[in-house]
């Protein structure tokens, strides 16, 4: 009897166009939209190193060939300047300059040919020369200018310390030199640390919560006081809980299948990098689905409200949770964490999103399992409440 209920319930889910749309096509469409929108943003944000010529103070062949200049009073400072330029010239995502050490004549020639944006002179203080004709390179020129201003500020600081506390000069220069380095984020799971990824996490969380539709249907069709189908089932010789369990399991199979398709689409079609924790990603989706179904089952079983009211309530709940987990505003979860931290610990969408996030950044799975445990407890509470209401055998009124 369980298999009979399960089989036909599953058939209903897969044939229900509304369910298929909201749980499969809508998330896929949204994911595709996110993908193209963020691809545009990434392209806009991509920064090419600024072609720059550097003319050292010891303007010689040795300098031009980038050999170490001889030690002098300013040797530490000179070394610091060159180290700074070299650090910003290092290949990588955060490379600022495409610098070439050269003579002044050659640098001017390159600037005239518009092969470089500006010339940095290792003078006292450092100078910048740019071409007024290159009006389309204002951003790059501005960056060079900012660099020079900041460097001069450091220079003055160093000069002051050199006169007042010369013994501390090496330490200060070392400290200032470190500032040009970037803090590199490291993933422990080969996952991408792209901030845009959190939008996809939120999208998956929203789809998990949309599984409420399955739980709602199971509840409505199990209660004689909520639907004619519930009445017909109620007078059949099948225990209500058995029939409801069949419907709930079929809801889980349907919604988890839809989520798997969404995940596969994200991974293989949109090439979203979820890292090496694939099994956990799918497990999180499964737990998220269970949570969504449980919420739907609980609200569906609660009271005699009209089906449309319950549906609207649950849809509003899903969107509310998704909004505060950052589906519409990326850093919303962080804001909520500052203002009302406990809410993130009970918001199912935030828990699902944070689980994905934890899988991407944390070496240990402690935070991940904490989130999963809370989701599990919330689901268990809702299921328990739903079962207590569905198991009612007689009604005061229909």
């Amino acid at each position: 009897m369980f298999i009979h209920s399960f089989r036909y319930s599953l058939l209903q889910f897969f044939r229900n166009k509304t369910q298929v749309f909201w749980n499969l096509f809508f998330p896929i469409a949204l994911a595709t939209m996110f993908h193209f929108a963020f691809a545009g943003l990434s392209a806009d944000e991509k920064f090419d190193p600024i072609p720059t010529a550097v003319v050292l103070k010891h303007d010689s062949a040795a300098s031009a060939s980038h050999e170490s200049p001889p030690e002098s009073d300013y040797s530490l400072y000179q070394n610091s300047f060159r180290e700074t330029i070299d650090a910003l010239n290092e290949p990588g995502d955060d490379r600022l300059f495409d610098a070439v050490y050269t003579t002044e004549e050659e640098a001017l020639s390159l600037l005239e040919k518009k092969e470089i944006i500006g010339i940095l002179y290792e003078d006292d203080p450092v100078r910048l020369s740019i071409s007024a004709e290159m009006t389309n390179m204002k951003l790059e020129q501005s960056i060079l200018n900012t660099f020079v201003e900041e460097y001069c500020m450091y220079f003055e600081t160093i000069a002051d310390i050199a006169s007042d506390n010369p013994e501390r000069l090496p330490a200060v220069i070392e400290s200032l030199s470190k500032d040009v380095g970037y803090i590199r984020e490291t993933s422990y799971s080969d996952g991408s640390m792209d901030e845009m990824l959190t939008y996809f996490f939120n999208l998956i969380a929203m789809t998990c919560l949309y599984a409420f539709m399955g739980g709602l249907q199971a509840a409505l069709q199990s209660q004689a006081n909520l639907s004619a189908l519930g009445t017909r089932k109620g007078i059949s010789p099948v225990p209500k809980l058995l029939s409801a369990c069949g419907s709930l399991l079929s809801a889980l199979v349907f919604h988890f299948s839809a989520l798997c398709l969404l995940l596969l689409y994200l991974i293989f079609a949109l090439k979203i990098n979820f890292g090496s924790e694939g099994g956990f990603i799918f497990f999180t989706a499964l737990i998220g689905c269970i949570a969504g179904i449980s919420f739907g089952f609980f609200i569906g079983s609660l009271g005699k409200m009209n089906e449309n009211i319950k549906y609207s309530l649950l849809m509003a709940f899903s969107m509310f949770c998704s909004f505060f987990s950052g589906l519409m505003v990326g850093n919303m979860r962080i804001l909520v964490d500052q203002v009302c931290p406990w809410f993130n610990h009970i918001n199912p969408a935030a828990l699902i999103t944070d689980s994905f996030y934890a899988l991407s950044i944390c070496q240990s799975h402690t935070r991940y399992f904490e989130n999963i445990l809370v989701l599990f407890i919330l689901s268990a509470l809702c299921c328990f409440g739903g079962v207590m209401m569905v198991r009612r055998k007689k009604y005061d009124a229909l």
Partner: protein
Amino acid sequence: MNIPAVKVENLVKRYRELVALDHFNLQIEDGEIFGLLGPNGSGKTTTINCILSLLTYDKGSIEVFGKEMHPDSYDLKRQIGVVLQNVAVFDELTVCENIDYFCGLYIRDKAKRKQYVNEAIDFVELGDFRKFYPKKLSGGLLRRLNIACGIAHKPKLIFLDEPTVAVDPQSRNKILEGIQELNRQGATIIYTSHYMEEVEQLCTRIAIMDKGKNLAIGTKEELKQLIKKKEIVSIEILSIPEEDLTAIRELPHVYEVRFQNHQLQVLLNGGKHNLIRILNYLQSKELSFGRVYSEMPTLNDVFLEITGKELRD
């Protein structure tokens, strides 16, 4: 002694202050087509829901096939079929799948179930619509599907709660024939409807209830004996003097005479040869008349006289 199919004793059901069933009694014998009549809100559906153990009740007892009915009485439920007033089918399942689903809640054996489903489809003549989804069916076909879902498992006791609401005459006729066929096959049927002619045509016994009470019960002939009106004689006549109307009123068994729109109506409370007596009087007074009708009281007359003519919700 035969065990009654349904026995309801002193049933009391309250919805807060409202008494929906007031010490209601009912006994339905095995093999009957039993009509349950009553105005809106009289307690018909509440009675059925109590018998089906869907509703709680405050007092009384309910037995089905001699056993007390509980929500867990699965053996009893297996013998019951219900055709609800509201169509209860799955929009995403075809005609065949819907019947198979509901039949499957009662019949485990697949081969037997397949046979029953085919028989139910043939019974309601939905063979050409097996693969149709409910949304593609007309109102009449949908009602027939609703019936098939309720009776496919060949129940011994069938509740039909207004199964012909919003159905065209052809479909209604088909449904009524089907109900009689089910009864011939051995099923006891409890039928509720607002269509008096249906109940009169179908039911072997009828109960009229109002305000949660059983006002009258019996065969249609027995019920008709309960009311004053036994015969109505209608005669088309151009005009009739007032003294003749008074004289007709004095004839035996006449208790009311009306003359309106050239139509003389004489209401009688029994007796024989009433029509001849009235016509003889008219001829003796040389009053010319046209068409003449003599009608026996209908169930509708019985219903209106017992439950009153005031409008209900």
